[in-house]
């Protein structure tokens, strides 16, 4: 029964091998590269150095990272502000209507986000739809400059990532027991108190999950900044891409990537401990 070629061994070797080779090893190599010296010809020279990390704390680059983080935070807050009431209203509908409305959220969620960023550009462009409509209505005499600035990048990120905020929020709000809200009201809580003391803590895991799903891609999606942003609206994603493709400084790009990965790890640990703190078990895997 327990021979070497059993189903168990075969399947585990396949999956384990795949994960080791294409998930663990590449990231280990990035970490390794970040400690090597840059080389014009072979990308890297095998010489240990902390040069790349020293370069990361150079004020010029720190400013780029802070700026990118602010853009991603703005997008996360934007998604939360739009998505929270939206998900709440959605979760309070009749099942058939809920299904329909949810389907309408799923379509953009599944649609190519590059194409959606491009669509946003068509809307905001100087000769785009909004400007044409405003000109036609006579509200403006010359086109507004809505594109190629930080605001456009944040709008683009909110547009592309909103479904990623709505879906986890909806998942917690659907499970929210209506009786708890009634109980709070019966016990004399005002609407604000009910929200702050009952709804908010119970939906916090959804907010955290949604924020992670918006914030991390918000740092990473370089094409949104390429299509909608100006010269200065750079995301961490653009920065890493440039280091690998134009500047050809692989160790520096790897160091930035390693820090990004560390940040992700920290956020995931924070999410995990907040769940434990709230006494909720993760049930994903």
């Amino acid at each position, binding site marked *: 029964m327990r021979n070497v070629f059993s189903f168990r061994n075969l399947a585990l070797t396949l999956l384990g091998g795949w994960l080791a080779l294409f998930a663990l090893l590449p990231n280990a190599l990035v970490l390794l590269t970040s400690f090597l010296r840059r080389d014009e010809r072979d990308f890297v020279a095998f010489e240990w150095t902390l040069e790349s990390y020293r370069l990361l704390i150079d004020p010029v680059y720190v400013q780029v990272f802070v700026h990118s983080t602010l853009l991603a935070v703005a997008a996360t807050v934007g998604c939360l502000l739009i998505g929270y009431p939206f998900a709440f209203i959605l979760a309070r509908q009749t099942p058939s209507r809920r299904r329909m409305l949810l389907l309408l959220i799923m379509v953009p969620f599944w649609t190519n986000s590059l194409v959606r960023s491009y669509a946003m550009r*068509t809307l905001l462009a100087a000769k785009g739809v909004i400007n044409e409509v405003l000109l036609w209505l006579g509200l403006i005499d010359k086109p507004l400059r809505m594109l190629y600035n930080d605001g456009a990048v944040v709008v683009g990120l909110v547009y592309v990532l909103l479904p990623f905020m709505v879906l986890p929020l909806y998942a917690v709000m659907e499970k929210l027991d209506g009786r708890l809200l009634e109980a709070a009201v019966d016990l004399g809580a005002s609407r604000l108190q009910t929200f702050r003391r009952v709804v908010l803590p119970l939906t916090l895991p959804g907010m955290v999950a949604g924020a992670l799903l918006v914030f991390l891609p918000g740092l990473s999606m370089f094409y949104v900044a390429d299509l909608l942003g100006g010269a200065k609206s750079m995301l961490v994603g653009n920065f890493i891409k440039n280091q690998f493709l134009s500047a050809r400084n692989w160790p520096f790009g790897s160091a930035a990537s390693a820090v990004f990965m560390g940040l992700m790890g920290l956020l995931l640990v924070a999410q995990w401990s907040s769940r434990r703190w709230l006494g909720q078990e993760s049930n994903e895997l």
Partner: protein
Amino acid sequence: MSLLKSTYVLLVYCFLYLPIAVVVAQSFNAAKYGTRWQGFTLAWYEKALASPILVEAALNSLWVAMLAATLATGLGTLGAICLFRYRFRGREIMRGLLLALMMIPDIVMGIALLVLFVALGWALGFWTLLIAHITFCLPFVVVTVYARLRDLNPHLVEAAMDLGASEWRALRAVVIPLMAPAIAAGWLLSFTLSIDDVIVSFFSTGPTFEILPLRIYSMVRVGVKPEVNALATLLFIIPFVFITLSQFFSKEEERT
């Protein structure tokens, strides 16, 4: 729903759909520059379909998405069954890796695979792209199938094995048919993830094998070409079709 709430919901849907609607309308607009309406045309579709580069890129995309979805679904289903049924050393590490793989920002994954392929001396192209796509689809299949396995009656497998079925046989005759809706959902999800991806693909394919999203990316970066609107419209249609399909699958599930 009160008036205020309906207005709010409507506004959010407008925000989500207005840009898409504009691109779809533009794809039929005869105007070459700007967005002012100058009559209906199918010229941009004809132009896109007449371009061998675009058609090849589109077919490449479909081919990779189909292969990656199929292989990721196969591997992911086996993985989910193992994680569910067996307790083995390294199980926690495997779970952790899969969860990390799901959350890892695309840019980090893209450059990590690029570094790996360069270190191994593999030329960037079809194979590297396929590997990359299987890798990022894998955790989503595992999660989807695992969730369904938890709802499976464990006695069914025991009964099959009591009746003399081998592990493979029990899997093939009992587990896989019961898992079919989740496996189909995992496949559809993988297919869409693969078709949608820009960032990981950007780093894991080379000039020998171009796919549609990358082609569109290089087209829209240099300026607006009207045939992009036609291509974008075609890419909008895919999720519509797929969501309808997955609705069909979940309805089937309810009936049985």
